[in-house]
């Protein structure tokens, strides 16, 4: 909370300058009627930003596990599948991937005789989920691998089979190492969701851009935009820290 207030400080200082003629905080002054309309317009992008991020995160969490499992296989070929996917997806910048998914993918679908229109909403989600899945896959792989081989062996010597070993010994330990970094990845998704604005998604960033075009007040409007992301991210990271504490204290008993 204290950190939050400190971060708020520069914003308050800037607001204090609003009497000077170079500042035009009136654009987003909620005390005036027109300012309030603008603020409402900006903040109402929050819903789409959150929705896109949450759906993309859920897909990425499932996709990441599917990609991670071949990476843990004994066979070299399965591990190769995992490596190629992770290295490839990880090296594509988000914006080109977004263009490829939004403008390119429908053409592939059409060539295959399927009519799957990709709207900005799903275009953004698919891109964010794909891009993030390379990272979540690595989190799963590292988390499961970090459980020492000795744990599997001990489970085997007391007669547990593969599924029981996973269920009772490996996953309960791995989950403590997987969940916090996975939640942390959510911050990445929220921030990257700003790119959805370029394909016309009316989320936080797009709305700020639109308002700047009509009001010519980029400093004030983008300041508010940054503040909006800041609040979102601070809430999520508080959640991550809570999760980390909980997971940590569990391990100690």
């Amino acid at each position: 909370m204290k950190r939050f207030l400190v971060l708020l400080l520069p914003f308050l200082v800037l607001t204090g300058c609003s009497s000077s003629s170079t500042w035009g905080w009136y654009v987003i002054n909620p005390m005036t009627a027109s300012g309030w309309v603008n603020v409402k317009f900006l903040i109402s992008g929050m819903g789409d930003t959150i929705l896109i991020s949450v759906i993309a995160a859920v897909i990425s969490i499932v996709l990441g596990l599917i990609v991670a499992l071949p990476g843990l296989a004994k066979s070299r070929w399965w591990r190769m599948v995992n490596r190629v996917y992770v290295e490839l997806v990880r090296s594509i910048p988000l914006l080109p991937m977004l263009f490829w998914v939004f403008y390119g993918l429908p053409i592939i679908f059409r060539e295959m005789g399927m009519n799957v229109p990709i709207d900005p909403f799903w275009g953004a989600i698919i891109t964010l989920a794909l891009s993030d899945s390379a990272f979540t896959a690595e989190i799963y792989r590292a988390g499961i691998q970090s459980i020492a081989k000795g744990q599997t062996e001990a489970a085997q010597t007391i007669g547990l089979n593969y599924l029981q070993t996973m269920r009772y010994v490996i996953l309960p330990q791995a989950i403590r190492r997987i969940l916090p970094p996975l939640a942390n990845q959510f911050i990445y998704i929220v921030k990257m969701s700003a790119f959805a604005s370029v394909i016309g998604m009316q989320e936080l960033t797009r709305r700020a851009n639109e308002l700047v075009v009509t009001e010519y007040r980029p400093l004030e409007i983008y300041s508010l935009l940054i503040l909006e992301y800041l609040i979102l991210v601070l809430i999520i990271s508080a959640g991550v820290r809570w999760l980390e504490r909980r997971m940590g204290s569990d391990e100690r008993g």
Partner: protein
Amino acid sequence: MSETAIELVDVNKWYGTFHVLKDINLSIQTGEKVVICGPSGSGKSTVVRCINRLEEHQKGTIRVDGIELTNDPNSVAAIRSDVGMVFQQFNLFPHLTVLENLTLGPMKARGLSKSEAEAKAMHYLKRVHIPDQAMKRPGQLSGGQQQRVAIARSLCMEPKVLLFDEPTSALDPEMISEVLEVMVELAQEGMTMVVVTHEMGFARKVADNMIFMDAGEIVEQGTPDEFFGSPRSPRCQQFLSQILEH
């Protein structure tokens, strides 16, 4: 009246091109205590781990309680249910309490009810002298206590044979004796034991058969009296003089 519990016939194993085990022949009777020693890297752990299929051998035959170890999952499962193992690093499950560590195998692999499994667990915790630690996590116990929990965890599966791979090597000196004491008690109760250790005092006290390995071979074996009194091979003599010096 004694019967063969474990039999290894011409067992060979390679890691890639590296020949770890060379024609290992070993026969262990029910109730017999075998102590294996030898320099680091000689293949002691590998022998023990082949007996319960944590490692696969490529040539030769391993039989436990009459069942031959093959790739057949049933034979592996059958042998694992007869053979318990105690590791150097304990390998307790850190996310479970001591009691849960002990009841997991009996409940999930043997289908015992929770109360049956807990009664059994408490019985064996008493036998290793730490019934009062049942509700703690492994991380809250000393190394010696953790290793005794690991022994109790193996005993809860009521194995016919117990394998120990350097069970005291990861312990502080003052904790070694409490673990050895439990092992001596087990030996006196008639458990069949295969123990990799450099604790020669323990070996003298309980071993029926001493085995010295070097470079993947069994170089020398015999009763403790023969073994310590008049080792034949120079390698074994040298090893013993080094280890008994301190």
